[in-house]
């Protein structure tokens, strides 16, 4: 299972998303590899990913993908991350 945490430049925001996604996955007892990526590298990073986590602002930049794109509104809200990941992976 591979999950990509996506932000514009691959610094800061994607790292926060990665850290909190890992915490949410731990709550769900799901094993997954979470990778931080930026728009420039998302094609490659998400080629074999099941899920892309990102902000609504970046969805149009992702382009075609087979992964489920999950929009996270509050990157610090573990309840939001947990429930959205549970729906996507359940």
């Amino acid at each position, binding site marked *: 299972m591979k999950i990509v945490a996506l932000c*514009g430049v691959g*610094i800061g925001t994607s790292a*926060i998303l990665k*850290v909190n996604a890992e915490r949410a996955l731990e709550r769900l007892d799901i094993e997954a590899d979470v990778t931080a990526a930026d*728009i420039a590298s998302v094609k490659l990073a998400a080629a074999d990913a099941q899920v892309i986590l990102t902000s609504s602002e970046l969805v149009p930049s992702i382009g075609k993908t087979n992964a489920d794109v999950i929009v996270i509104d509050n990157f610090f809200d573990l309840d939001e991350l947990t429930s959205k990941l549970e729906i996507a992976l359940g």
Partner: protein
Amino acid sequence: MSLPPLPLDAIDVGVHVPDWRAAVGAAGAALERSGSTAPGYTERMVGVIEEFGAYVVIAPGLALAHARPGPDVLTEGLSVVTLAEPVAFGHPHNDPVNVVLGLAVTTGDEHVHFVAELANVFNDSRIIPALAAAPDAATVRSLLGIAAPTGEDASTEEPK
């Protein structure tokens, strides 16, 4: 690895700005004042938002302004600016913003460690309103639980 030290001059409380550009500008100015970045980094943080939109508004009321590492990043740093009047960044859910963090890193990897610390602090949903209401820089720093840099002069005045 813990958060980078937060000198008081990297904190600006109750700043009056007309728009998001000026808000990011204040976070950039605070990074410059504290010796983390050279001029130019601020414009690059604005450029990230111009290019990718307001995704840097990662929680209600909170923007994490940042850009890629570059020669204008002298040392990794964090700045905190609270706004007297909130401004819109154009985010569909998390506007308006009243706390802006400025983040500068020298490589793409090192920050991942202290970002976990940042997440620890901000996973408590009470922190953003508490920061927005903080009366001074020392209160902001203690809310974040970040240490003062070693040797900081206690009488350091907050430049405006």
